Structures are given as structure tokens and as C-alpha cells.
């Protein structure tokens, strides 16, 4: 069976920035896939090439086996992209926007029931006749999701769909996206909220400065951090100076709270506590945590920076 998305050796340069440096990636059908990376890593560039909004310099991308350049009509029918920016056409109402969008894909009246279903599912019914200009940011975001789905694409890409979105809408969106995934759609998600990726995605790729630096199942990625732990120490008085033993290990240090990123084997908790006491610290409380995706993410992207 062909993959949902096949990315081979993709290079992309913008003037003097090498945005993508040979990206290879295969996203399987029916997968809930996370594409993570810091700002400017190249996530949006990759999505833009998939959607036909940007040209690639070398390599190829296929959606359900259809090359996005050669076979662009088929590729675009198979793909729905929810863009990151809140863009909209100020001339039309919500229902008009959705019918027009479906029309571009050659779909007419026969598709109206699906559009009404989208309007219901995304709770847009009250605003279906309202002009796009008059909608709140959250409403516009929902229209963007509906717009990406009007042609029933098999592969759905969401580029940071929950950025700046309130809790209620976030819940609604995730519920809806989970439903799509349950119905067999392939979902590709980019997000800044790592806990979202951790709770939703089956496999995750981490993109950093135009290259994939990790590609693994969620469990596999988390296991990479298993030899690490976080030690959080609360002291009676704020610490003014830290022992040199802790150089490079501090995750954060605010007032009475000090969080340290430690290696399970090479770092000794007892030694660290002794060093703190030598500085005159009175320890009030302490606990350790297993690494989460955020730790792994930071570790991997920092390691790249050092390399």
C-alpha cells in the first residue's frame, strides 16, 4: 500500500536561508503523525511544498502516491491543509466560503450535505450566514478547519491549529480531529504544545534547522530520555549562588525552586544535595520526574545546536 505522504530528499532554499536540507520522511496511511520543531525549523515550508504553495529545489513529495508537482491535481484532491495564519476572504459568508471552496474541487450540490455536516460538527451553525469579517478569531479558525475538509481529503495537515485558541475550542478541535482519525484519515499535526503531541500522536518527527533529527514512535522517543530525570528542589531561602557542580544541569531556577536535568547513572543525587547544603541551603522539599516529550525535544534540539 502506498504511504499517505512520501517525502524524499527534499531541499529548499530561500535566498540565503537553506530552509530544508534533504528531508526524507514517510507518513503511513491512517497514522496520527506529529511534526515538531522549534520556530524556523522548516515545518511550514515542508507543508507549503506538500500543498503546492512552494516549489522544491530538489527531491520529491507524493501524497497517496501522487507527485505534488507532476500529478498536482490528484495530490491536491487527496490533501487538506489547515493553515497556521487566520486568513479569510472578507467578501463572503461562512456557508458561501465552504461552497466556493468545494466548487474549486469540482464539487457541487451533491456535496452540500457534507458541508452542512461540517458546519454542525464545528458548531458554526449560528454563524453560517455571517460574513467572515464579523467572526471572532476562534470562529475563523473553525472555518479554516472546515474549509480544509470540504473535499473530503484522505490526508489532513494541521499547521499549529491550536495556537492562540481557548481551552473550549481546543477541546472541540481535538474531539473533531480524533473523530476524523477514527474514520481512517491520516492526520499530520504540527504544534508548539508538546503535551498535545504527546497525547495524540503515534509517531513523531522532530525537525530542526531544515533536517529531521529524530523520527520515532512516541514511546521510542520518550525511551530516549529514560536515562535522564528531573530533580526539583525547594529550599527554605532563595539560593543566591549555585555550586559549580550544577553547571549545565539547571533546567530552571526561580526563587526557592531549582529544577535540574540529571543523568540517572552519572549524576549522584546525594552528591548534589551535599553540594547545595555546603552553600548553606536548607532543603524543604524535593522530588524527581521521568522525562516527558518536552525534555526529549529540548535535549535533541540542543544537542543539534552544540554539534
Amino acid at each position, binding site marked *: 500500500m502506498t504511504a499517505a505522504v512520501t517525502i524524499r530528499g527534499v531541499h529548499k532554499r530561500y535566498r540565503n536561508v537553506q530552509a530544508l536540507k534533504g528531508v526524507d520522511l514517510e507518513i503511513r496511511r491512517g497514522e496520527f503523525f506529529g511534526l515538531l520543531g522549534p520556530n524556523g525549523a522548516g515545518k511550514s515550508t515542508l507543508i507549503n511544498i506538500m*500543498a503546492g*504553495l*512552494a516549489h522544491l529545489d530538489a527531491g520529491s513529495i507524493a501524497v497517496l502516491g501522487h507527485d505534488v508537482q507532476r500529478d498536482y491535481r*490528484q495530490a491536491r484532491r487527496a490533501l487538506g491543509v489547515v493553515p497556521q495564519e487566520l*486568513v479569510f*476572504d472578507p*467578501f463572503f459568508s461562512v456557508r458561501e466560503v465552504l461552497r466556493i471552496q468545494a*466548487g*474549486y474541487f469540482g464539487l457541487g450540490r451533491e456535496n452540500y450535505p457534507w458541508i452542512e455536516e461540517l458546519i454542525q460538527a464545528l458548531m458554526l451553525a449560528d454563524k453560517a450566514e455571517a460574513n467572515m469579517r464579523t467572526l471572532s478569531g476562534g470562529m475563523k479558525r473553525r472555518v479554516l478547519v472546515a474549509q480544509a475538509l470540504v473535499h473530503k481529503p484522505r490526508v489532513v495537515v494541521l499547521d499549529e491549529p491550536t495556537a492562540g485558541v481557548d481551552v473550549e475550542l481546543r477541546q472541540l478541535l481535538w474531539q473533531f480531529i480524533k473523530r476524523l482519525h477514527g474514520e481512517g484519515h491520516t492526520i499530520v499535526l504540527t504544534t508548539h504544545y508538546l503535551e498535545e503531541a504527546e497525547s495524540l500522536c503515534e509517531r513523531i518527527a522532530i525537525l530542526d534547522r531544515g533536517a529531521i533529527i529524530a523520527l520515532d514512535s512516541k514511546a521510542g522517543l520518550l525511551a530516549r530520555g529514560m536515562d535522564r530525570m528531573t530533580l526539583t528542589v525547594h529550599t527554605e531561602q532563595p539560593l543566591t549562588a549555585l555550586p559549580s557542580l550544577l553547571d549545565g544541569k539547571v533546567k530552571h531556577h526561580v526563587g526557592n525552586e531549582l529544577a535540574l536535568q540529571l543523568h540517572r547513572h552519572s549524576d549522584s543525587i546525594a552528591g548534589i544535595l551535599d553540594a547545595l547544603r555546603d552553600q548553606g541551603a536548607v532543603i524543604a522539599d524535593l522530588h524527581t520526574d521521568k522525562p516527558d516529550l518536552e525534555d526529549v525535544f529540548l535535549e535533541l534540539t540542543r544537542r543539534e545546536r552544540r554539534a
Partner: protein
Amino acid sequence: MNLRGFGMLLYKELLRFYKVAFQTLLAPVVTALLYLLVFGHVLDEHVHAYPGVRYTAFLIPGLVMMSVLQNAFANSSSSLIQSKITGNLIFVLMTPLSHVEFFLAFVLAAVLRGVLVGAGVYLAGLFFVPLPLHNALVLLAFALLGSAVLATLGVIAGLWADKFDQLAGFQNFIIMPLTFLSGVFYSIHSLPAFWQGLSHFNPFFYMIDGFRYGFFGISDVSPWRSLAVVLLALVVLSAMTLELLRRGYKIRS
């Protein structure tokens, strides 16, 4: 060919200007009528362009064609730049529409707006002075081809401009002078030889001259020659625009 997709893009482009018809259809008719009122009133007694034709009658076809051309240009260029600047052009670019379908929909919508405004000016003009009709087919051919040329230019300008003031520059420094100096308000035979010669390099002159022939059966140059020039301009500009769209010039990075 994604015929239904093309049809929808055309429909959307028509709906876009129809929704603001006051500004896109009515306002240009009123502007043209003001020209007619002022110039017709002041010059009707003094200027004679063609023998046996009153100046007001001579002026109307010029104003009709000027409105057709300017509105065709305004429609495709402003629609494109608005979509580019607000970012919603991506909703068209992410669809299976080809560059040819894109081109045809934008040009056709602009032609229709140009012709609608032109028809409005023509009908209103009939209240001022009766107009002969020498050959309706010639008239229609020049209106359609001329507006298609300007619609195509509008697509180029809309693609090229990054900001509204760049587009305004294109309009004010290229489109306006070329239309005003094309013989809308005068017959080029009334010009000194140098300016008369120069007018022959202005493609807009041929559009207006050929269009006017459709009314009076009189023209400064042969309508066949005008037709050839307009057709050539359309073919060259269309080829250019199609190539820009195929490459995604300034719309696909």
C-alpha cells in the same frame, strides 16, 4: 480540465464585484457621465472630430471604451492583490485548478465587469444624444478583446505588485495616460504630426478607434489594422501572463 472548478472561480470573481456593485459598477458609470456632462457641454459647439458628427456623440464611444478598459483592469488587478495581501489566495492555490483555468476565470470576470460598466455608460449616454450603430459585431469584438487585454494586464500588475500603492502607480502612470492619450476625447487627426505619429504606438488608440468605427463607420485607421493590433497585444500578453502563472511568479514561493 477541471470545468466545474473553473466555473466556481469565475462565479466567485463575479460575486466579488457584484457584492460591491455600488463601487464597482455604478460609480464608474457616474464618473463617465460627469466627463460627458462637462466636456460635452463645454466642447459640443466648438469641436468637430468627424464631419456630420456632434462632439458629444463622438465622445460617448470613447468614454464607453475607456470605462470598459479601466474597469477590466481594475477588476483583475484589485482582486488579485487583495487576495495576495490578505493571504486568502492560498485557498485557490491549494486546489486542483490549473494556471490556465486560473487565468481564464480572472480574465473573463474582468471582461464581464468592463462590458457591464460600458453598457451602463452607453445606455446613459443615449439620454444625451442619439448614436448611430454602424456595425454591432465590430463594436462587440473591440469591447471584448480590448477588455481582455486590460484584464490580462491587470493580472500581471496584480501579480507583480506587493503593495496597493505599487498597483496605484501602475494604474496612474501606465494605464491612465495610455487611455487618456488614446483618442478618447479627440480624433488624433486633430493632433500635430509628431503626436499623431506617437499615438500609433499606443495600443489603446487602436481599441478606441476600432470601437468607434462600430458606431460611425469612420475611423482614423483601418478597423482591420486595429483589430490585428489588439489581437496581437492579447496573444502576447496572454502568453506572458500564462508563463508567469505557470511559474507561480510571486504567488508560489
